[in-house]
């Protein structure tokens, strides 16, 4: 069994490397590979003095324990029922039909996955080594490997428990409620154990971060907390060993934790087999779909229930509006339970922030800044994250091309979905920031001037969002092999490089698009000055001119991209 697993891992690795090397004959992969290598070298491998850590070495254990505890808690609270030990269709076919026991099958899978885990731990250590890799770092690699292995098995168990509850008809809400109660009980126990020591901790952090972390680590090691966190501490200690002797001394406890997880996973193996085969079948369907150029079905097991539509689509009207409406529906329904949870958590958080400070205005001032930051991030990063446009729909390119819709209309409709959502978020943030700012006296910015600034921001942003979104859509139309279409994410150094090249190209295009808009905007500001408009109010005509110019550019881009869409054959281009 061990021999077979090693053989499969070894041959798969070698053949995978050979395939990637062969792929480098194509310029697009070679360029991506070169850029990816440079990126890794410059940011991670280049010697540049000692590594800088925000956490002092003596307190690393406490931080690691808290990090691990958070990961485990999040896994139980929000993890999926999809096991990390997903079998490929070939593995299912060969292993489940072979004369092997369930345990042997699981052993095989666990063994096979160790190579990936080992490489992950090696990369993690190398990437944060600051270009220095003394021999003792090997101990950290080995220690981290143990942590990853235990976490992988823990996720497997979590998924199996979740799957088992699903099969017993326990709803998602009740499953989460159970996890919340369990995690809440542990947190309450920890809080009870820490009672009377919060002041001590606060005072330590107030004096210095180092002392704060040291006090925290000491508290985590003592009393009830010490018992509660022992499994986590035992697991992370080998990775934090300064020398071989300490590592050897700490190793048995960590191995014990890994062994307990192994036994736990084996015990859960009755459900495991069904889950594994089901996952393999789902994956086989997805792979077949990808290979034939079709959209794969989603990986999630249970079917989604349709959330009521945002608006009802009228039976008649222009096609581009219908396409934009479709993408809005996807965003609305695709967010699942996250949206209500985010809104609820956000409201609670904001209420808390608003109540901060000695006077009411302090908290509201912070709130205004937070809303502006959130809005700014939405405008800058939103178009890259929200992909319910051609970046998602190109999976159904054959369906799209069969529609009696002009390419320009289709591109406009596709881009309008995310632009509408992001603009709405930006406007809401802006309005909330303005409302919160009314309770604060901002020096040099009267309420009237704040109105002007809000108007200028509200007018300018949609144009910017439209251009950024269209650039992303242009990238997927012109370089379909370079951009991830749908949920798939290709891996490898060359892919990192390709993403970097695409990102840089997008930024250059954005700057090029902004130059004429900014120039026109400045002319409008100057004209506003001549018309006796003063101060911040000058930003309003400037923003209007900027928005009009960007809208004009967007119109040209839509026409151009529409023609490109009509001419393109993604099957031929992606196939390369």
């Amino acid at each position: 069994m061990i021999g077979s697993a090693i053989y499969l891992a070894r041959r798969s690795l070698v053949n995978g490397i050979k395939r990637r090397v062969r792929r480098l004959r194509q310029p697009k992969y070679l360029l991506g590979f070169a850029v990816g290598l440079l990126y890794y070298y410059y940011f991670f491998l280049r010697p540049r003095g000692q590594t800088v850590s925000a956490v002092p070495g003596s307190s690393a254990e406490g931080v690691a324990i808290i990090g691990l505890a958070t990961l485990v808690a999040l896994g139980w609270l929000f993890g999926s029922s999809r096991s990390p030990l997903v079998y490929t269709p070939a593995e299912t076919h060969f292993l489940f039909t072979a004369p092997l026991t369930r345990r042997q099958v699981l052993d095989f899978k666990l063994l096979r996955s160790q190579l990936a885990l080992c490489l992950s731990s090696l990369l993690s250590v190398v990437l944060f080594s600051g270009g220095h890799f003394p021999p003792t770092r090997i101990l950290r690699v080995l220690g981290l490997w143990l942590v990853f292995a235990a976490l992988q098995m823990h996720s497997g168990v979590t998924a199996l428990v979740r799957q088992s509850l699903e099969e017993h008809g326990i709803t998602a809400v009740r499953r989460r409620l159970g996890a919340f109660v369990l995690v809440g009980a542990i947190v309450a126990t920890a809080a009870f154990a820490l009672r009377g020591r919060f002041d001590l901790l606060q005072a330590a952090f107030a004096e210095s971060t180092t002392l704060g972390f040291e006090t925290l680590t000491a508290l985590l090691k003592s009393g009830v907390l010490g018992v509660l966190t022992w499994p986590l501490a035992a697991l992370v200690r080998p990775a934090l060993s300064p020398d071989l002797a300490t590592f050897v001394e700490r190793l048995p406890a960590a191995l014990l934790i890994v062994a307990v997880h192994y036994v736990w996973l084996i015990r859960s193996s009755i459900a495991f087999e069904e889950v594994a085969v089901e996952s393999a079948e789902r994956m086989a369907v997805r792979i077949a779909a990808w290979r034939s150029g079709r959209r794969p079905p989603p990986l999630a097991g249970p079917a989604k229930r349709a959330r009521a539509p945002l608006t009802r689509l009228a039976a008649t009207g222009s096609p581009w509006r219908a396409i934009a409406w479709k993408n809005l529906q996807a965003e609305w329904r695709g967010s699942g339970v996250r949206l209500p949870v985010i809104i609820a958590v956000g409201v609670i958080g904001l209420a808390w922030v608003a109540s901060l400070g000695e006077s009411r205005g302090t908290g509201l001032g912070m709130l205004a800044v937070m809303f502006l930051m959130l809005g700014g991030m939405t405008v800058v990063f939103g178009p890259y994250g929200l992909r319910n446009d051609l970046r998602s729909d190109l999976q159904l390119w054959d369906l799209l091309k069969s529609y009696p819709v002009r390419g320009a209309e289709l591109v406009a409709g596709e881009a309008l979905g995310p632009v509408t959502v992001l603009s709405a978020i930006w406007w809401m943030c802006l309005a909330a920031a303005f409302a919160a700012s009314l309770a604060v006296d901002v020096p040099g910015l009267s309420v009237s001037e704040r109105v002007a600034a809000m108007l200028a921001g509200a007018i300018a942003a949609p144009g910017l969002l439209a251009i950024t979104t269209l650039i992303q859509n242009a990238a997927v139309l012109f370089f379909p092999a370079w951009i991830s279409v749908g949920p798939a994410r290709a891996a490898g150094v060359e892919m990192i490089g390709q993403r970097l090249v695409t990102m840089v190209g997008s930024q250059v295009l954005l700057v090029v698009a902004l130059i004429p808009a900014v120039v026109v905007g400045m002319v409008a500001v100057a004209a506003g000055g001549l018309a006796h408009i003063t101060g911040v109010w000058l930003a309003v005509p400037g923003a209007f001119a900027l928005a009009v110019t960007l809208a004009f550019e967007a119109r040209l881009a839509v026409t151009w991209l529409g023609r490109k869409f009509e001419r393109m054959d993604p099957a031929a281009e992606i196939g390369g």
Partner: protein
Amino acid sequence: MIEVRGLTKLYGSLMAVDDLSFAVAPGEVLGLVGPNGAGKTTTLRSLVGIIRPTRGSIRIGGVDLEHDPVEAKRQLAFMPDEPRLFDYLTVEEHLRFTARLYGVRDADERITALLRELDLGEKTGALPDELSRGMKQKLAIACGLLHEPTALLFDEPLTGLDPAGMRRMKHTIVERARQGAAVILSSHLLQLVEEVCTRVLVIHRGRLVAIGTIAEIVASRPDLQGRSLEEIFLALTGT
């Protein structure tokens, strides 16, 4: 009416379809058969406007697909082997969305009628994930028929269907042809082709090998007399 003249598609140096010409009259069902890699899917995709031919012309209902693709596509319906549906649109929303794209005026009436005809009435608010394979296929058919196309193209229409679904699909194909649509059906299932199609087009390595009724094909090749369609197919394609 579907008219194809000199259809050629090249992928680099690979000739996927080579100078293919044929026509399908209203009420006719043309079976497109050929071994794997013969060029059937490329032909179908060219006919629907999904890919652009390297050379040749395609006319749908007298409208040139190259010069006026929007008007040509308005008369077309393509039924792929796997239903292509959007994850986050319900059954009814798929139909409303399709109606908007095709400019269907009496959409509400047609949607109601189609939902009833295809037994989808109780699933109007369901997302594709909540539907069985057969239901998804029904929805894809409903979307395809909503605008009452005059040209229908089916790619392996029986894939994944149960016996009842197969029967329903065959009925849909024959019924639409009877109502005056020109139909092209691409399939490896020679039994289906024999049962449903009025003529057969055999394609091999991108080239037309034979076209006509089975009797006409046999008449042009006396050595095929008395053979089954499967034997005729194998003899024509040399597989």
